[in-house]
């Protein structure tokens, strides 16, 4: 019984994930696009939960769907009508090439998956209930992966400073704007 429920949850989350993904790419109004991405991130969080990554699912909703997307929506609101993104052109040949490239990528991945399916992708490892819990993630981060942890903090600091520098107006630009 539990098995069937997990399958149904997986199917709904995967369908929502792909549907909102298509919506993000195809919308002409970036505001709706960003809202669809929030749905996409939420359904991905469900998939993370099914893969026993509890902490990551929570972080996904808090950091991504919460903080990052709010920042995004603020910028879309700031740009107003200028943010509109019509499906304008580009050479047709280039667009066809883009579709071919994306489909080729997809086929490649699926073929590799099909080849590996029999031996490597079934019978997942036994994991304890605490696998992926905040305590385990925190312990791994602060022992084995301390360097990655510290470098991540520096990356975020640099990005924050960079964002401020890029967003600062100089006197000369004020006159134009």
């Amino acid at each position, binding site marked *: 019984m539990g098995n069937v429920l997990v399958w149904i949850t997986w199917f709904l989350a995967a369908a929502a994930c792909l549907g909102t993904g298509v919506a993000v790419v195809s919308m002409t109004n970036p505001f709706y696009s960003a809202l669809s991405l929030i749905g996409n991130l939420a359904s991905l969080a469900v998939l993370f939960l099914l*893969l*026993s990554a509890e902490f*990551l699912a929570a972080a996904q909703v808090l*950091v991504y769907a919460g903080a990052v997307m709010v920042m995004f929506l603020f910028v879309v609101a700031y740009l107003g009508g*200028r943010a509109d993104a019509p499906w304008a052109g580009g050479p047709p040949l280039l667009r066809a090439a883009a579709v071919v490239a994306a489909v080729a990528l997809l086929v490649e*991945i699926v073929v590799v998956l099909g080849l590996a399916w029999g031996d490597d992708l079934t019978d997942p490892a036994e994991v304890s209930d605490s696998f992926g819990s905040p305590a385990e993630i925190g312990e791994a981060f602060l022992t084995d992966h301390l360097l990655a942890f510290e470098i991540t903090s520096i*990356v*975020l600091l640099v990005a924050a400073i960079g964002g401020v*520098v890029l967003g600062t107006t100089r006197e000369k630009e004020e006159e134009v704007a």
Partner: protein
Amino acid sequence: MMDGPDVGWYLIVAAILFGIGALGVMLRRSPLIVLLSLEIMLNAANLTLIAFARQQGDLDGQIFALAVMAVAAAEVAIGLGLIVAMARRRMLLDVDQASALRG
């Protein structure tokens, strides 16, 4: 034993998601949509990392996914900063037009 679908099914979802994101990056010309499509691609990679972490019973994949999340947040901050700077300079918000790296 894992309830529900095998890890491979998650990987297929991730592959399709990655394809959708790649299509968005290549087809759309608005920098905002390109940024959102990039997020989709990063998240597809995250799903793959977490699926393999579950398969191997090893937390390293989840740690990597967290690092990817932090990098994605940094990327959005810089990308939005660039878009706002472009808008301030009255430039057209079109990635095909913004081909020269000069103010």
